[in-house]
């Protein structure tokens, strides 16, 4: 293991990563912890793909929280450009300053007789107006400027246009931003960069090659129970087992948008609020809209709800050994 003084103790080993994330309630699987560990030590961004609601964004938030780093978030959308992602000149401030300094400038220029002389003097001031003073840093530049380390989350990169990926390449490969008027700003402490994608479009190879790639899928029963135990404390164990069994069953039904981790957490909270201690068909029917967000999906399972509930209750009752208490 390389002795890197800038490594926070939370990233010192893969097990340390798992433990650190667990301390803020994020249950990381081995691949997730490995990816975070390697991202820090290889200084590479991580691209996370997977269905919505499995904890992609949450991973970045949890890392920032557990390491007490600043989280800088860039939400991507169609039409996102460099003035929203990198930096912008504070035009208003520039204008205001010119207005205020007008007389001063007039005074300075006044003593030169020729046009060339005045122009020469004015040229000297131009740099003043394009200095750090008038620079509005946007997320990517902000992340470069953090002194104490940061987590840069570039969320839903697939929503942006392909041209925006090209803009990211310099930032992701060298951790630096080039501003023509000022120069190149390099990161003091390279941020931990996390990109997420829901795969609505295929990302470019150039971007993929610069990133480590992590795929987070739907959790299995054991993992889901662990996560729910961490996220929804106070949930009765018996109900937890039934609930997870039901959701696992639901995911293999013929539905458009299977419930993901976010929905199971919501459902668990709902059931906790309702003081339920076992699943039954009526309860499931009443709260199904927490799990399924599409009308067609709800209709699809309406008919078999009784069977599903029963199967889940049975499955939860039999393999008690499956859940390591």
């Amino acid at each position: 293991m390389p002795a890197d003084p800038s490594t926070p103790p939370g990233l010192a080993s893969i097990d340390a990563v798992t433990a650190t994330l667990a301390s803020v309630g994020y249950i990381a699987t081995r691949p997730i912890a490995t990816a975070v560990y390697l991202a820090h030590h290889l200084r590479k961004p991580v691209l996370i793909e997977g269905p919505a609601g499995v904890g992609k964004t949450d991973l970045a938030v949890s890392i920032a929280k557990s390491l007490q780093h600043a989280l800088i978030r860039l939400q991507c959308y169609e039409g996102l450009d460099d003035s929203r992602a990198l930096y912008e000149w504070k035009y208003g401030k520039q204008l205001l300053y010119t207005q205020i300094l007008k007389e001063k400038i007039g005074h300075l220029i006044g003593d030169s007789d020729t046009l060339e002389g005045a122009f020469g003097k004015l040229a000297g001031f131009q740099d003043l107006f394009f200095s750090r003073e008038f620079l509005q840093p946007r997320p990517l530049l902000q992340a470069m400027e953090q002194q104490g380390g940061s987590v840069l989350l570039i969320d839903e990169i697939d929503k942006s246009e392909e041209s925006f990926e090209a803009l990211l390449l310099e930032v992701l490969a060298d951790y630096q931003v080039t501003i023509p008027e000022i120069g190149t700003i390099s990161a003091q402490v390279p941020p931990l960069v996390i990109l997420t994608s829901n795969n609505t479009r295929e990302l470019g190879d150039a971007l993929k090659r610069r990133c480590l790639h992590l795929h987070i899928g739907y959790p299995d029963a054991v993992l889901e129970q662990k996560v729910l135990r961490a996220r929804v404390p106070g949930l009765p164990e018996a109900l937890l087992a039934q609930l997870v069994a039901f959701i696992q069953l639901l995911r293999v039904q013929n539905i458009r948008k299977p419930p993901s981790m976010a929905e199971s957490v919501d459902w668990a909270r709902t059931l906790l609020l309702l003081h339920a201690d076992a699943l039954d068909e009526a309860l499931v029917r009443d709260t199904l809209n927490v799990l399924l967000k599409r009308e067609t999906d709800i209709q699809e399972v309406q008919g078999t709800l009784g069977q599903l509930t029963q199967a889940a209750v049975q499955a939860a009752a039999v393999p008690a050994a499956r859940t390591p208490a």
Partner: protein
Amino acid sequence: MARDLGLPGIDSQLAGFVRALRAAGAEASVAEAIDAARAVQLVGYADRETLKSSLSVALAKSEEEKAICDEVFELYFRVPERGQDAEQKAEGQGQGGDTPPAPRTGDDEVDALLDMAEQQAAGDPGAMAAAMQRAGQKAGVDDIRFQSQTAYLTRQLLEAMGIRKLEQQQQQLEAGAEGEEGAQGSAGSALRQTLAAARARLQRQARAHVEQRFALFGKPATEAFMAEVAVQRPLGRMSPADMDRMKTAVARMAKRLAQRHSHRRRITLRGQLDLRRTIRANAGHDGVPVTLHFKHKRVDKPRIVAVCDVSGSVAAHVRFLLLFLYALQGTVADLRAFAFSNRLRDVGPPLETLPFDDAMNLILKEVGGGSTDYGQAWQDLYDQHWQLIDGRTTVLVLGDGRSNMTNPRLDLFGELAARAKRVVWLSPEGEGRWGTGDSALLQYRPFCTHLGHAATAADLERAIDEALSAYG
């Protein structure tokens, strides 16, 4: 566990893995291999699960590649087999105390082989695995292409390990034993047994090694080669095995097409200021034009209307055309697909809801079988779906134009051609047969932007590529 295989040169191990990965169809670039090497330096080979997820994170860049990566990992970093009698031996030792030291020949090289075989038998396969790895490289085992090479390469591998000397010793002993029965006593026969056991063990391990290398390097290469051949094979003459192969091949071709045609939705017309948007954007700047907006040319998303003849002779081609088009659906093109033999039917719904094979069978059952009537198909298109055809539409017709002497309705087809952006007609028949018998293809020809012979999957790819290239 693959705990410390004792192999010298970590990187040849990793390089082999990357090579196997590429052979299996995942694209791992040099840069990614370097990342993987740095990752392995960090995490080491000690923990198998960690190694697996590290390699997967660094080398595989999509869900499919992850699956390939995991599969190759299991094969490549296979847990070396423990000697079969390791446990028996351990038991024997427990009961009988120390076993006497195994007899040796006095020849260093042969003794080294005997040592290895015994270690492997005792449950420590490290030394033998390492030696086999080295010898395998010398014998060129990684270049294996066909299963029939297994026996030959196994022998080559054993010779590279120096088994010949062992065999010579064995023969000498045999000869000696026949000559003077019993004179050499039990020492000779014990040595003979040791040699025979070691040789059998080496042979078994060598064969296992070669078979593993075939699974890693040979099989994927053979599969890729067969798929390449299948792409060039006439679609009408496909064996069921080819059909399966084609599905993956077509998926790959479609991905290639999608990559080529998916970007460039907007082209900036440099120099032409978009005055309206510029004024709007700079209203906050007191009208001083600080940010400039330029005019764009919006590139149309390709819209394809596929009209497919599903009579017997063309059915196989239709299957592949639709497989192709549906792989591009959404990402590249807006697609509407119709099938007919006499009446036209919208086949979009079954293709979107059912698995592809089921949908295809349903379509062929419901639509196929009637007597072909192109005129009626145009009439149905005109009556029901005319609003789909406009200046942005490419109409893709797949059929042989054999219309059973019915009215080809050239008037409607002409109108269709005038209304659409392009009409591309693909015929499964060769040019020599156009217009023979009941084929009305030559009558349709003047209206088509392009009329071509599409016999193989490669032809289909080219035709779709051309159709998409007409946009932007």
